[in-house]
């Protein structure tokens, strides 16, 4: 089994436990051994870099240093926001002066060049697609999905260096591989409102509402996401959006790992499906119907 350092990120312990759970389950099933960074700390998320770039880099670099201590040079995380911070820190620390400044804030300096990648990238690049195809036991046939990537998974392209930055396709391809019908969702990289859910609910309801609307327009059964913040804004806040915009959205919003895990036949409990706020039951009912019909 390929061993890879794993950084779950704070949200993986609260608002997106199901993402963390399903990621671990799926990776195990696909032969990727995730080695948790012992005693990892918060990457600082958006707040840190809006305050200071050295502080932000240091918070991330503590985790890069932990990766280094494991003797590894690649750390993977499910969360695009953590990813963006880890990659930015790693990139900035290519500059010796900057590295010295960031290290000066740390107890244990980060001396090596460590890179970060999303779990999605690792799965897409390190797992043989044939293996995935072969392992599908419950295809997603009959499901109509919109893949929503969020704003920072692939941007800015020079930093992220993965997939097309205006029109990413990897999740689309993965879902198609699992048998689902993927609609050409036009707002794949539009921002969902990010962390403004707390200080400015009005902003999030407007932006996330627009995203849900575009999905409804295309008559999708569900959204697929890869970001805890996106998922939360679309799922947990769907009720809030409905009352703010006088709408009646009821569209389940999955993490791609949940649907992948389902197709691979992983036990539902391990996928944390119960944690979803918009009840995904209609989706699974539909899947059952198509399965029975064929």
């Amino acid at each position: 089994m390929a061993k890879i350092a794993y950084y779950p990120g704070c949200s993986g312990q609260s608002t997106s436990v199901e993402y963390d759970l399903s990621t671990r389950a799926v990776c195990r099933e696909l032969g990727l051994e995730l080695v948790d960074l012992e005693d990892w700390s918060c990457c600082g998320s958006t707040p840190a870099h809006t305050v200071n770039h050295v502080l932000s880099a240091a918070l991330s670099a503590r985790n890069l240093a932990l990766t280094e201590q494991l003797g590894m040079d690649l750390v993977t995380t499910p969360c695009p926001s953590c990813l963006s911070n880890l990659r930015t820190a790693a990139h900035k620390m290519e500059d010796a002066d900057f590295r010295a400044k960031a290290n000066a804030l740390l107890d244990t300096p980060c001396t090596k060049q460590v890179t970060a990648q999303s779990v999605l990238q690792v799965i897409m690049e390190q797992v043989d697609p044939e293996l995935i195809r072969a392992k599908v036991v419950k295809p997603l046939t009959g499901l109509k999905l919109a893949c929503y990537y969020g704003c920072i998974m692939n941007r800015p392209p020079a930093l992220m260096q993965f997939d097309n930055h205006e029109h990413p396709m990897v999740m689309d391809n993965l879902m198609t591989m699992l048998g689902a019908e993927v609609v050409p969702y036009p707002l794949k990289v539009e921002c969902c409102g990010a962390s403004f859910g707390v200080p400015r609910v009005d902003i999030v309801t407007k932006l996330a509402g627009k995203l849900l609307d575009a999905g409804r327009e295309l008559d999708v059964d569900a959204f697929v996401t890869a970001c805890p913040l996106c998922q939360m804004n679309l799922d947990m806040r769907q009720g809030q959006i409905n009352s703010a915009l006088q709408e009646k959205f009821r569209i389940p919003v999955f993490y791609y790992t949940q649907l992948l895990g389902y197709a691979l036949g992983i036990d539902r409990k391990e996928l944390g499906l119960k944690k979803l706020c918009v009840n995904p039951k209609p989706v699974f009912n539909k899947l059952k119907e198509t399965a029975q019909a064929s």
Partner: protein
Amino acid sequence: MKILDLSAGDRDFLAEVESRSGQNLKTCYQCGNCTAGCPYTFAYDIPVSQVMRLIQAGQREMVLNSKSLWLCASCQSCTTRCPNEIDVAKVMDVCRHMARESGCVSERTTKLFTDAFLQSVETHGRAYELGLMARYTLKSGRFFDNIALGPTALLHNKLSFKPHPIQGKEQVARIFERFRKGE
């Protein structure tokens, strides 16, 4: 509307933003592509392209007092599409740093949230969401904004009642400590 005396523009401001962001802002030719793509334009008081313009014109006060700085989500759409390859999001970030440093806070709630978040990280080593929400709610006085979410989140076991402190939380606290000392 405020009338600008261009000759009184603060050239040092432009120079400072340029050196702190590493961007050459003189290349901005006001095409508006950043504003065109910015999802937050509807909430801004000054659209991002005009922020760039005002920096060029050395309008320190107008820029640092702009609400837009606090509403930028760092979504990178501007940076990704600028025809002059300006890292616009970074410029917004740098202006926000400068605003903070000079005590200009035109979006109090955003700042409070940021502070609460970092406070939480400093205390526990990780973000403790329920705790930070509580702290934010107390400080901002905005009890009702997200109250509706409480039941939804708790019902689905989304928020944990206990923080997840880490062993190395002192190490993290020291990062903040050293940072403040260095400032």
